[in-house]
Structure formats: structure tokens, C-alpha cells
């Protein structure tokens, strides 16, 4: 079973993402911010990380930058959840090493399609 780390400071978003992915048969771990996610990522290996951008403590871009420095996450797909108005954020994210993004708002189908796109 593919392991996914879902990071978002909004509980409802986390629940929605988590529920959708679990229903589709993924093993999902949730984290509330970048710092928590980074610790989780170091503690175990994930096949995919999906992270919100705006979060307290550690934002999503910093998380991605940090993950990319870890040998275990050199080639791991890292997706960010961004908004349609966040053009700059996409650039910033890509520079930090993000694989791609999912544009908010999205529905479960779109989420799964995107996840399958990177997990094959």
C-alpha cells in the first residue's frame, strides 16, 4: 500500500484529503504543519507528500525545501495545495523542489487523479 503524508493546518481539509485517499486505498498519515510533517517524514518513508502552502510554524514551501535535502526524499513526489490566485507560490514551490500542485478548490476525483498522476 502506498504511503501518503497529508499536511494541512485546516482540520476539515485534512479530513477531506485523508478520507478521500484512504477510501481509495492509500495509507495516509496526517500532519498539521510543516514541522510536524518533516518529523513524520524523517521517522518513516512516504511515497508522496501532499502539503498546504500557508501554515503556521513551518509553511509548505519550507517543508518541501527541507524534504528535498533529505536523501530519502530526493525523488519523492511532493505536491502542494495551492490556490488559483497563487501564481507566485507555484513558482516558489517549484524552485523549492515541488513536483507539482493541486489547485484549490478541488474535489475528491481531481485529488485522486493528481495523486495517481505522480504515483503511477
Amino acid at each position, binding site marked *: 500500500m502506498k504511503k501518503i503524508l497529508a499536511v494541512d493546518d485546516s482540520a476539515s481539509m485534512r479530513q477531506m484529503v485523508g478520507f478521500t485517499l484512504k477510501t481509495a486505498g492509500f495509507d495516509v498519515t496526517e500532519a498539521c504543519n510543516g514541522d510536524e510533517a518533516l518529523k513524520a517524514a524523517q521517522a518513516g518513508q512516504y511515497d508522496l507528500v501532499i502539503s498546504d502552502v500557508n501554515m503556521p510554524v513551518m509553511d509548505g514551501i519550507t517543508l518541501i525545501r527541507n524534504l528535498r535535502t533529505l536523501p530519502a526524499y530526493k525523488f519523492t513526489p511532493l505536491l502542494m495545495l495551492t490556490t488559483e490566485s497563487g501564481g507566485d507560490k507555484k513558482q516558489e514551490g517549484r524552485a523549492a523542489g515541488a513536483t507539482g500542485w493541486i489547485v484549490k*478548490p478541488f474535489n475528491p476525483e481531481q485529488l485522486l487523479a493528481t495523486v495517481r498522476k505522480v504515483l503511477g
Partner: protein
Amino acid sequence: MDIDLSQFSQVFFEESIEGLAIMESELLKLDVATPDPETINTIFRAAHSIKGGSATFGFTQVANYTHLLETLLDEIRDGRRQMQPEHVDILLLSVDLLRGMFEALMSQAEFNDPKLPELELRLNHTLANQPTQAQSASTPSASTATQSTASCWQIDFKAGADIMRCGNDPMLMFAELASKGPLTAELLPVSFPVWDDFDPEACYLHWRLALITDEPLAKLKEVFEWVEDECEISYNQAEAAPAAELAIPEQAQPPQPEVDMAVSAPEVIALVPEVPASPSDKAVASQKQSAAAKSGESSSIRVSTEKIDMLINMVGELVITQAMLGQIGQQDEINQESLLLLQQGLEQLASHTRDLQESVMQIRMLPISFAFNRFPRLVRDIGQQLGKKVELILKGEDTELDKTVLEKIVDPMVHLVRNSLDHGLESPEVRLAQGKPETGTIMLNAYHQGGCIIIEIADDGAGLNTGKILQKARQKGLVGPDEELSEDAIHQLIFKPGFSTADAVSDLSGRGVGMDVVKRNIHELNGSIELKSDAGKGSRFTIRLPLTLAILDGQLVRIGKHIYVVPLVSIYESLQVPTNRINRLSDGHELIRLRDEYLPVIKMYREFNHDADAREIKDGLVMVVDHNNEKTGLLVDELLAQQQVVIKSLEENYTRIPGISGATILGDGTVALIIDVAGLVKLAGIGSSNEHAA
């Protein structure tokens, strides 16, 4: 995949309302001239989360509105726009508006506040006002639906060297392309760097792909959307099939347009969240009915994991104690030693049970900051409105109390604070003239005291004007013309129902508007309120509340063979009444004279149809209870112990009984009913000639 998004609505509402509270408190903290970037960021994040969630879960109205807020905050955050005081105003008003929207959503009502278009206009105006970088309203899917019919695409794809290091894999992209139609791929000759410069993690490859598909170009470009900037990609339409924009279905070949419609129509729809967008949509209403908000009040509670851990610990301790007791029980004979162990075990059991009970109660406890949080805003707004300078001091915000009590105490507190602002604090000029600091102070303080929570609301204003209150009370006939009252007794007058009239508001500088309601609400929570006022120095209200509604201090009373519990807080005094102080009215009612008052007496045995030792007032005890400032006597046979009782709901276990608020189980296992004083007074029909037959 069919996922009902409405199941997340309740959590989303809860966190959004929390988010609004954060926005509000941060906005109030904000120094407009030199805003702290972190504060702005926090406000932005709250707005951003609400926007993201509402768009995802299909609350279009909220999404559209918060989008404007988000844009404004984003510009401020990025330094593209200078923060102005009017921004704070507009953001605070927006917080209010959004609260209204969420309330409407939760009760499944329409939201038709005229403030919405008004504020929307203001926001748009503000946003348009200053030349800022226009938000690139990039909707990559906008052109999706135009092109049609199958065509053959030749795509040259030269990967960027770093593509793998971003977690992208060309093979996965090709697989995605292949899902759109037959795909062939050919590797073009590439030049690798010399060995010393060769990077095994880099990608040097260049492909030529051929794809036959009826998907429009935009859909193909989406596949490479993430990497288009770092890769060289070109798209050539090899075979120009009738793909012109004018290709309306009837002009093209019959089968293909149908295929095309079938493919592209769901795609377009899929961009809209699953839940129908308009909140007025009936489908939403029916979906939501199942999941959320059957009652207005949210019935869920957020509990810190710390508290849950504590519970689990306690249960663990109990299990150990149980094992220990079990071991003693298996011994064949009981000797001195095992008896000692048994005693110890039982003591442990008692202590653990008590701890466990406390831990369980803790789950319902919330810090009073949930109630305090609204006051900075309230004080700011009303202070501004009245032209008064106020500093609000909050103390003991971490003090915890029961969620239900918390929810019900907010309104009385708002009332008291509002009164302090309106009637208590003087205007800056008056304060200066009296040698006080220009800025008045209102203090909210909460702390625990002996199983109760105390909430104090104090101000350093003028205090109550006893002269005017007395004058008013005499006018209203609440106090006799020659009656002299102590200062304290005069203060108590403001809790009289007669004082809460519009008349009193206009010409009375003291308090008194609806204070009877405040007192009644607090009494309903089994609490009490006290007032202390010093002329010229200020006043202080002290509210005393039980920590929880699940346990109350009760007086056990006996009527015949039956035992009832009367909440201690309702009891004024208990006494034997001599015959010469009992008056019988012509309609059969009996009154007792207590000092200078005449009180009606409810014969409890009649109300509950019991046999009793004391059928006449002179034979029993009269317990004077205070209900809404009206004293009433209750005739009982005997007073028993006072003790804390755990309240069990009758409504849930049996049915609602007038005059009874619940039941409890006494130490010997018998059930005792708890008297609802207000209900009993109503039931007895005091004041009407509704005499019950014995």
C-alpha cells in the same frame, strides 16, 4: 468515486468560526501604523483557510466573499498595499458578516443580509483603488470546451535536467498521455556530457511522441503543466482534422461529436465541487440534514489529547486496583493482613473513582477565554460609539468551566459589560474633571473558588447612583414612601423586574436595564450574582457558578415517605411558622408573614399527591425559596442532609415532569427527584385560584 462532502461541513464550520475569532482578536491587537508581519500573516491564513474550505465544500457565497478578503490581505502581506485604519474596519465588519453567513449555513437558512452587497462593493472599491499587480486570474481550463474531434499530435519533449529531482517522472506523464489515446514514443538522439560532468541524477533525454486523441490541446498541456517551464515542449497538430472552433456537432461526422460530448462534458462539470454550489439548493439541504446541525447548538466538543491521556491513565489505575482486590478475594481465609490489604484497596478504589470522575468532568471543560474573546471587540465598538476611552483587562482566561455553563453565561456577561460601558464609565472629560485617568478600565476576571467558578466584571466608573435608584423605586411603588433602605438594599433594587422598563433606561444613570433577566439566567444555571458598588469609584459584579450542571449542591427534604432534593442555591431560609403569622385568604390560599413580607406557601404533599406528617403550615417546616426575586414558601415535613448530588435527566430516561428538573440516586440506592423551583411555582399556580385537590 462518490464521496459526500457534506460530512466535513460541521468540522469546517467549527474551524471557520474559530478562524473568524482569530481574525477578530488579531485585528484588534494590530497596530495599524506598523503592523507586525506575523499578525498579518495569521489573519491572512485564517481568511485563506476559510476561503479554501468553503470553495472545496461548495459554500460559494462564503468562498466568493473571502476571496476578496484574501486578495486584500495578500496585498498587505506582500507589502503591495499599505495597511489603513479603514482596512481594519472593513475586515472586522467582514468577520461579522461571515459569522452571519456561517450561522445561516448551520441552520440551513438563506443569508440575505443587505450588508453583503454593500461590503462587497466597499471591498471591490478598496481593491480597485490602488494600482496593484493585477491578480492573474489564470483559469487554465477556461478554453477546455472549445476544440473537438480527434487529431494526431506530435509532441517534442526535451526534459529539463532537474526534472527527476522535483519528483517528476516523464514515464508517468507519458502514461497519462496514453490514457487519452494511442501513443507512440521515439527517443531522439541526445548528446551526453563528458564523463566528468555527467550527473547520474540528471535527465538528458529528448522524446518525440505521437498521440491520436480527441482531447483539446489545453488538456494535453495540462499533462506537462508542472514542468513546462524547465522542459522544452512543442505541440504540432500533424493531421488537421475538422477541429476548427466552428465545428458544431451537426457539421461534423455523426459518431464523433457524441463521443466528444460524452468525454468533455463531465470534465467540465468535474471542475465544480461535487456538492451543488448554491446554499439554497434543495439537494444541499437534504444532504446536510443527515450529517449535521439537527439542533442549533453544536453537540461536539474538542478535547485536548492531554485530557484523554489522563482518562486512559485513570482507567489503567482502576484496572490495577481491581486486580489487587480480586487477588485478595481469592484468598481462602481472611486474616488481619488481608483485611488491611482489602482496606487499602478500597481506599485506592475510592480515590481512583474520584479522580476518574474528575477527569471525565474535565472533558466538558473549556477555558473561559472562549467567552472572554468576544469582549475586546465589543468594548472597542461600544466605546467608540459612546466616545469613551476604555481599557479592557482580562484575567484568568485559562480558568475552565463546563461547556454548557459557558455557552449560557455569555449573554449575561455581555449585558453586564455593556452596562458598565454605557452607565458605569464616565466620559473622558468627566473623568478628567474628577481627577481620574481619562481612560476607564473594565476588568473581567475568572477564578475557581471551592468547587465554584467566580466571574467578576468590574469597572472604575461612577458606581450606582443610589439617590436616583431609590427615587425611581418609590415612583414605581417598589419601596414605600417613608421606607429607609441601606445602601446595599438599594443596590439590590436593580435586580427587581420592575426596573427593566424603557422608562428606566432614559432617565436613570445607574444600571437596571434587564438586570432581572441577567439574574434569572444565572439562577437557571444554579448560580448567583452579587453586586458591590462604591459611588465615584466603580462597581463590581460577582457571578458565582457551579463548575458543571451535572452536579449540584442540594438540600434533602422529606415529605411523608418521600425524599426530594431542593437546589441549595434557591433556598433563602427555613423556619417554623407560628399560627399567628399564617393568614388564610378567602379563596383558600394561605400566606405567611415573614418580617414585612407576605409569602404564598406551596404545600408540597398536595402538589405531588403524597401522604405527609404535616398537612398544615403550623405543623411542618417552611422552606423559603427565591425564584426570580419572588419568595415562595415550600411546606415540607423535615430537613435532612445537605449534599452534592449527581443529576440524571428525567427527560432522557423517562419523561418530562412539571416541577421536577431531574433525579438523583442517593447513597442507599433510592431515587430522589430534584425540585425545579420555577416550575413548581408555576405548577402550583401561585397568584391564581388554581387550587389543587388533596
